[in-house]
């Protein structure tokens, strides 16, 4: 009986790891079926290419955000980083239309990396809680963006064709931006699986004290997570400018909300320690599919926002229920142990 109690607790937790991804796949299938039945142009190649382009940018930034959240932190400033690096990318092309794309992309990444390191230092070294530190830099980075743009905007006419083609070209029928996202997610998943320093993210988020006892250099690791997140937000800004070539100071405003929504729906635990890139991909796909479907059906913005919020509540509730069932199972087992011990003491 004792063994039975234990096995059920183990089974629940083992199942919980897979449940989230299976649930997301089912949710995605239901959503697609729903919109396919309602909107005739939903299941078209063009619509899916559009979805893929939107998912691509969210996903690139969400991979970095996931690393930060895994360490039991959060980065609210990614929207501002995307906006700033989008403007700087576009502005670079305005002045140097002959620069090769990879060079400008690297500039964008470097800008994001720098801003991410600032976040990491504020959180890990100055020990400011991440939600406050990055709320502050959200404002600061956006402020810098406003100052640099000086109220002006850059339009598609000022940008070289090579850059604009990045958003419109579709090698093998898949948008170029989506290829970038695929590369980043595969790379992100490999790193989180195979890089020892990235495995430490999970340990730090799971139990910060135990991580310190185990000799994990938590300060360095947290800075690394923010740096990677910033760099990917920088790349995201580059992609954003290609996709939405009219760039001004409010570009990508509130973008951090889409990113965090994708991660949370994808099963990344906001208390750190748990989450997979596969889950985040599914989460981002689900959010963007719903968005696209609602746009096609001309359903009001209210319902889109409502469903985004609703999906978060459902996702987090399922997590809480699983955790509670697990705790009940463990407590039942403990009761059996105490009873057994008293029986023995009595005999």
């Amino acid at each position, binding site marked *: 009986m004792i063994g039975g109690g234990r096995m059920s*607790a183990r089974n629940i*937790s083992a199942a919980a790891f897979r449940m989230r991804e299976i649930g997301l796949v089912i949710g995605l299938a239901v959503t697609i079926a729903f919109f396919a039945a309602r909107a005739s142009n939903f299941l078209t190649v063009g619509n899916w290419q559009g979805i893929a382009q939107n998912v691509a940018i969210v996903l690139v930034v969400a991979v970095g955000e996931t690393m930060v959240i895994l360490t039991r932190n959060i980065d609210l400033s990614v929207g501002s980083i995307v906006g700033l690096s989008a403007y700087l990318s576009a502005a670079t092309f305005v002045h140097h239309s002959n620069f090769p794309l990879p060079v400008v992309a690297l500039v964008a990444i470097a800008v994001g990396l720098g801003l991410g390191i600032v976040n990491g230092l504020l959180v890990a070294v100055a020990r400011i809680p991440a939600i406050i530190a990055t709320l502050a830099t959200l404002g600061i980075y956006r402020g810098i963006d406003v100052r640099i743009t000086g109220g002006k905007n850059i339009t598609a006419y000022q940008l070289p064709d090579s850059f604009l083609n990045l958003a419109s070209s579709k090698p093998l029928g898949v948008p170029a931006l989506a290829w970038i996202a695929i590369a980043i997610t595969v790379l992100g998943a490999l790193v989180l699986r195979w890089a020892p320093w990235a*495995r430490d993210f999970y*340990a730090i988020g799971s139990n910060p004290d135990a*991580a310190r006892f185990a000799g994990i250099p938590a300060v360095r690791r947290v800075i690394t997570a923010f740096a990677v997140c910033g760099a990917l937000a920088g790349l995201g800004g580059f992609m954003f400018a290609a996709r939405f070539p009219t760039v001004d100071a409010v570009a990508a405003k509130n973008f951090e909300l889409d990113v965090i929504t994708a991660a949370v729906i994808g099963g990344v635990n906001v208390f750190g*320690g748990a989450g997979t890139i596969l889950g985040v991909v599914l989460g981002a796909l689900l959010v963007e599919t719903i968005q696209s479907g609602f746009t096609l059906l001309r359903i009001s913005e209210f319902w889109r926002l409502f469903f985004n919020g609703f999906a978060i509540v459902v996702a987090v509730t399922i997590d809480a229920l699983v955790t509670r069932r697990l705790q009940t199972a463990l407590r*039942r087992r403990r009761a059996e142990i105490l009873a057994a011990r*008293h029986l*023995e003491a009595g005999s």
Partner: protein
Amino acid sequence: MSAETAPLLELRGITKTYGGVHALSDVSFGIQPRTVHALVGENGAGKSTLVKILTGVIQPDEGTLLIDGEVRRIADPQTAHKLGIVAMYQEPTVFQDLSVAENVFAGRHPRSGLRTVAWRQLRSDASRILDELGVDFGPDTPVRGLGVADRQLLEIAKALTSSARLLIMDEPTAALSPHESDNLFATVRRLRDRGVVIVFISHRLEEVTAIADTVTVLRDGGHVATRPAGELPHDEIIRLMVGRSLDALFPKEPAEIGDVVFKAEGLTRRGVFSDVSFELRRGEIVGLAGFVGSGRTEVAQAIFGIDSLDSGTVAIEGRRFRPRSPRAALRRGLAYLPEDRLNQGLVQPMSIAQNTSMAVLPALTPGGVLRPRRERALARRFMEQLRIRATSIAQVVRSLSGGNQQKVVLSKWLAANPRILILDEPTHGVDVGTKAEVHRTISGLAAQGLTILLISSELLEILGMSDRILVMREGRLVAELSREEATQERVIQAAAGVSEAA
């Protein structure tokens, strides 16, 4: 002295003081290689402080540590690790979200080409250690689903990978079934035979006798004895653990004991405590004794409505009471002062009057406006009743002495006019003078007809203050002793689960 008998670790004159209180004073003893060395003592005897010093978490004020005969300073946990000193804590420090194998090698993943994690090696290394320990879970099991017993074994597995020479186990069997304890002991013996020294801390004396080669007894931060386990029968260990006499520190005044005002029957919170039944009478001080973790605080918090009960009933003054929330309990005249509330339950920059009225502001603010006159009257009443020494009720709490601060906390709760007061460790961490003052106050409250349930880890406080003593062990009420029957030995015996014949 030959190398064979040189101690692996020797303590010489180790002293540690916290705010004038000796946590350890002049402790000297040696730990021999290839032994299981048990450390026993009451709560507060200094065991945890000693463990913290050995693991580099804190530094001793005086004294030296010798490892293999050489003086060493254990500056931090990393140094302890390097010296091969590893501690397993009561609450295992595992990573819930990771697999067993990754937990074993957290922060020290084996690496392969391109500096990537060598998962195959990680798994096989972990498997080997787990097989050696004879556990029934695999390297891929998620730790979140493991019970406490399995987590303890996981902690041992972690310790084994870091080539531990001295393994400290603090109450490792607290959450284990008898069968699991036996398995753990088998592991401990295997480790000892492999050359690892085990420092074993336990409240359960049968275990100490069963597993230990040597026993060290601590009392009030002092070293009492270090002897071979074979020479120490249970009653001798208990005598060494207590070995003090009651003095005049605990002045319980005689109070008239009235009718039953509180009755608990069959209180059960699954896995925490079960079938706890007792009565409290008017004007009575009832001591609730037991080791930390025996469920004392948990019972009190369930009665007060902080945690839920799975079954059982509570009656206050003959009427059924369903503990749902602290507010509901306060309305029925039941107040609970948690341990830290006595130190932290005050707003330091505010006055005595403002602190006193805090819990009863609605009663002082008819129509939403505070009546300062009523607040002052309330504060003056308690200042007089509890003999708070201050220039006036307007004095800022920060400037009061510790004992007087404690009394302000007490007035805050008494302002709610409770008839039953549960005090959880009311004198934990206070100096001797303050302690006597708090005891006098508690005793005075009982004389005025309040019913008091006193939870304390300090045996002498329980014995000195209580009209009746309830003893808990592992979630159950195991003894009820009248003031006349109660002795230090009997309470410890009940709390440690030793039969009197032993």
